């Protein structure tokens, strides 16, 4: 949590956000109070070092605060990079005394309203708000399941109480990472280290939407040369959805061929319980990335036909209230 000093309100936010923008191509300065944004840390070659969520709290006392949630597997690298980018200009605080719980699914708003605060039901997708419950909670309406839901930052000493209170609700069941992975795959979301890595650009990953106009024009982020070129001229390969034509799941590492020639690789794959069918995410050379195109998946040495399909596999169900 970097915090700028000596400045107030929007100036404090812009100052801290500009430091993070040294690492990330997202428009962090443009975050409104109470808004959350998905972005990534890129390297000089335009590859993705991590994908992350950044939240700007709305509370008046929090001016200049940003909450940054990174992948646990990347936290040491990310910490070093953010520390370097903010050195002497912002304070960086590790949330080792906090836990992050995710409450996800169509009934999440009912449970959140009952267990935490009725106001949670009114939050929009990708917003952040603090609540005086279970110590003090910082809640975002977000998640990585493609479903409606919340991610809740809670002080460690209250985390067990909060988890138990949520679990006591009839609509709540605990799930593990396997179930989470099925959901994020159905939602067509990237898993870092699998669908994204230091050689993959955000454009190849079909994440151009995370790079807002001001940053595209300024070209002032790591890897801007490659990323700008790919934005203008297209990338050589592209992340796509894949539906095997038969029942055999194609998992990470399965080679993708067209007419016997290697044109790509599966980066995540498995079985969708919602569709009752195997699904995969992979990268293919752009000329083979057209929707509806046929490809072969080489599973245990055997070529199996499959089709390029749109992502997500299962429509997202985020809570976005209609604007009046």
């Amino acid at each position: 949590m970097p915090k700028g000093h000596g400045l107030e309100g929007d100036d404090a936010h812009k100052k801290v956000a500009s430091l993070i923008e040294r690492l990330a191509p997202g428009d962090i300065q443009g975050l409104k109070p109470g808004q959350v944004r998905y972005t990534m840390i890129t390297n000089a070659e335009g590859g993705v070092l991590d994908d992350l969520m950044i939240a700007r709290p709305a509370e008046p006392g929090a001016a200049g605060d940003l909450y940054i949630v990174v992948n646990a597997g990347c936290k040491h690298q990310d910490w070093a990079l953010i520390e370097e980018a903010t050195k002497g200009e912002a304070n960086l605080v590790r949330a080792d005394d906090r836990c992050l719980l995710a409450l996800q699914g169509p009934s999440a708003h009912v449970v959140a309203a009952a267990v935490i605060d009725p106001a949670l039901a009114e939050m929009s997708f990708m917003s952040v708000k603090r609540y005086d419950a279970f110590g003090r909670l910082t809640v975002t309406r977000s998640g990585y399941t493609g479903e409606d839901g919340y991610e809740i930052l809670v002080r460690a000493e209250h985390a067990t109480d909060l988890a138990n209170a949520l679990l006591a609700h009839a609509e709540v069941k605990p799930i593990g990472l396997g179930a989470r992975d099925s959901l994020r795959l159905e939602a067509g979301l990237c898993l870092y280290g699998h669908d994204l890595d230091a050689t993959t650009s955000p454009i190849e990953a079909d994440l151009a939407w995370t790079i807002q106009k001001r940053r595209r024009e300024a070209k002032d982020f790591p890897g801007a040369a490659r990323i700008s070129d790919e934005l203008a001229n297209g990338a050589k390969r592209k992340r796509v959805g894949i539906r095997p034509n038969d029942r055999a799941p194609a998992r990470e590492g399965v080679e993708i061929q067209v007419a016997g020639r290697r044109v790509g690789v599966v980066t995540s794959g498995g079985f969708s319980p919602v569709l009752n069918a195997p699904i995969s995410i992979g990268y293919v050379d752009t000329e083979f990335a057209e929707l509806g195109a046929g490809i072969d998946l080489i599973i245990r040495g055997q070529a199996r036909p499959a089709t390029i399909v749109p992502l997500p596999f299962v429509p997202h169900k985020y809570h976005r209230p209609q604007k009046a």
Partner: protein
Amino acid sequence: MTTRFTKDHEWVRLEGDVATVGISTYAAEQLGDVVYAELPAVGASFAQGADMAVVESAKTASDVYAPISGEVVDANAEIKGENWQIINDAPQDGGWFVKLKIANKAEFDALMDEAAYADYVKGL
């Protein structure tokens, strides 16, 4: 009829020189709902321990190894017909994978019996 088990959770039941092979109840429970399985063709031969079949759940893909050496003389038509559910419903009965004509009965005799396998699973 004796059923014997491997550390990789295959079971084998021997009648004459034909062994019926499948995955154990424990293995089926660990996998969860089976969403795909691939059996070898009749006539294929396997050495003990060789990759013989594949079984997949939403969670993971698992290799099934030949618990003893032999030649495939039959493969379960239910599984070939994509009735994966039978593997969860009756893993040690109707959910069998293949029948092998065995080459060496000593390989069978050296596997764990039911009690030894139960102890083995308890220690996992």
